[in-house]
């Protein structure tokens, strides 16, 4: 691993009685985009402000190429600062200057360029960020999305070595958001600046990041590549990257995967002690991924939702059901043998068959056959978790089917 460009070592920061950072350690490498993610108010912006010197740590050090910022001479600090740009969360545009003057300000104040040179550089950015129409307007006269682009244009106009982005995409519509992320990635490849980006746009921000850091509970809970992030099994990290699934599970009434695993372990322990019985049912939807891709995201979600909702109705508070994989729902039904589990499956079959999503006429444009399968395992003896699941997979049978109306065909 090369030497980090910027390194936080045991940085602590409090505002009055409120501690925001507690021994935070973070490494940022040259030429990479590092995404910092975390809940609102977790201290992401505070981290950024430490790099540029707007805030100073209460204790700990911030090292730039191995040298603490606190030991920088005035000239070194000036040089370092000139190589940085900062894009503020609320843009911090100068509201008494026009858009052109805003973008030109760092060049006009810091360099000895002629006004023609400044104009050329600024106009290039104005065109690049599609701001031509608003060049002579004031920040309060343009939309929030445009203000964001002006802030971005101002940040890149000096061609800095490092840009600190404080939520550059917050408040933008999806198209503009993608355009901004695209632009950051494109510009980063072209110039090769180091980027530090605070963002909530999961997973979009991972696609353009070389490294990801998660800040949680005043510390850096994870730092590594996006691939390492996906492989990480820490609960906090999992919640961050599967945020969307967590929301979907709440909508479908499913438990979290962790809750289910806990319940399953508990039941397996009880089997060892009290010789009770419980059932595990594994539902799966064949080719759900393909449905998601070809038919649509909402159709795929509805199928899952149907199983989840009917499960919740039939199990009440007694059982646990959670998304187990992209196409599977695992259910634990305590003190139930296989006949009770079969009854529940029948109910679900009846319930889901009534829904529009099981009717071919709902898929007028694109249609795909699919089947809902369920496999029951009655657990009477102590078994491994993996063993239970592979048995359930083996026992799976089709419980409901949707076949497209081939005669009519898609319209």
């Amino acid at each position, binding site marked *: 691993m090369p030497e980090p460009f910027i390194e936080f070592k045991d940085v602590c920061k409090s505002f009055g009685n409120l501690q925001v950072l507690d021994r935070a350690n973070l490494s940022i490498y040259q030429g990479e985009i590092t995404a910092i993610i975390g809940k609102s108010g977790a201290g992401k912006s505070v981290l950024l402000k430490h790099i*540029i010197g*707007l805030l100073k740590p209460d204790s700990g050090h911030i090292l730039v190429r191995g040298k603490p910022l606190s030991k920088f001479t005035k000239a070194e600090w*000036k040089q370092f*600062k*000139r190589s*940085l*740009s*900062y894009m*503020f969360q*609320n843009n*911090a*545009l*100068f*509201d*008494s200057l026009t858009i052109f003057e805003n973008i030109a*300000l*760092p060049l006009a*104040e*810091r360099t000895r360029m002629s006004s023609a040179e400044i104009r050329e550089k600024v106009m290039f950015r104005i065109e690049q960020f599609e701001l031509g129409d608003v060049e002579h307007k004031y920040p309060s006269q343009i939309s929030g999305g445009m203000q964001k682009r002006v802030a971005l244009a101002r940040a890149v106009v*000096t061609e800095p070595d490092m840009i600190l982005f404080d939520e550059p995409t917050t408040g933008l519509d999806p198209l503009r958001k993608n355009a901004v992320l695209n632009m950051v990635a494109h510009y980063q490849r072209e110039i090769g600046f180091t980027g530090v980006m605070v963002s909530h746009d999961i997973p979009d921000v991972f696609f353009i990041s070389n490294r990801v850091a998660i800040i949680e509970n005043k510390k850096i809970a994870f730092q590594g590549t996006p691939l390492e992030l996906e492989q990480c099994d820490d609960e906090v990290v999992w919640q961050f990257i599967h945020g969307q699934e967590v929301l979907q599970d709440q909508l479908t009434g499913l438990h979290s995967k962790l809750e289910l695993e806990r319940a399953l372990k508990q039941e397996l322990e009880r089997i060892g002690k009290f010789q009770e019985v419980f059932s595990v049912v594994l539902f799966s939807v064949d080719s759900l991924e393909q449905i998601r891709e070809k038919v649509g995201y909402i159709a795929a979600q509805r199928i899952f939702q149907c199983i989840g909702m009917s499960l919740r109705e039939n199990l009440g508070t007694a059982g646990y059901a959670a998304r187990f994989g992209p196409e599977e729902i695992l259910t634990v039904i305590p003190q139930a043998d296989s006949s009770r589990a079969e009854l529940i499956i029948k109910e679900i079959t009846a319930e889901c068959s009534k829904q529009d999503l099981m009717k071919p006429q709902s898929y007028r444009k694109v249609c795909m056959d699919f089947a809902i399968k369920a496999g029951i395992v009655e657990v009477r003896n102590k078994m491994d978790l993996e063993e239970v699941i592979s048995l359930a997979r083996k026992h799976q049978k089709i419980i409901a089917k949707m076949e497209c109306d081939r005669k009519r065909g898609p319209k």
Partner: protein
Amino acid sequence: MAEKTADSGNQGFLGSINWLGRRTLEIIGELGAVGIFFAWGFALIFSLPFQFRKIIQQVYFIGVKSFLIISLIGLFTGMVLGLQGYYTLVKFGSEGMLGAAVALSLIRELGPVLTALMVIGRAGSSIAAEIGIMRISEQIDALDTMDINPMRYLVSPRMAASVIVFPMLTALFDVIGIFGGFLTGVVLLGINSGIYFNRIYDSVVLKDVTGGFLKSLAFALIVSTICCYQGYFTHMRSEGFGARGVSLATTSAVVISCVLVLVVDYILTSFLL
């Protein structure tokens, strides 16, 4: 019981001494901060490259835009001085001295003080509000991150412009005020115009004029420093958040500047006489 009362009385006394001490230390600290702020902002006026454009912009904002209000106030002040002066002087049969009375009170005292008070109301409050808003909306931080010194960019041009503009506005005030006195004294009440101007010529010496200008220079530095300081440190107030913070900063800027102008006026007058 008696002991308890004595004890609480003692505590109350100690508490007030404590409060007094704390307040004194706070005020001394604040004065020090203002002093450093002034020295830093003033020194940066002379840093290269000179900020001609920005200084001219501020001269326009603080000076040219105050032209009308200063003229108007000057005119009516001179007129009322002429009126009051005439009725006082006529009792002693010396209404011929009206020109001297109007000119001396304007040049020595009313000109610099009223000009300063008017500029505080018109430009000082807006300086504090503008810088305050820039502070709370992170625009000052943005300047800092761009390695643009906010003191040099925001404070120095305003100080320089004030130093240029205050004496000029004072001169304008004096001239128009004397003309106002002429309107009431000569045109309205019938004093001979030759006597009016001749008395001015006889009584006003250069020391009066330089004294007045010295005062206006001192007021320029006080007003620009206090108004910029209040806006610049809006966020350091205990209630310095959002619009309320800016409104408090503006109020303090106006009140403190006005009080200081009058206090410093007294001190300077006692030295100049």
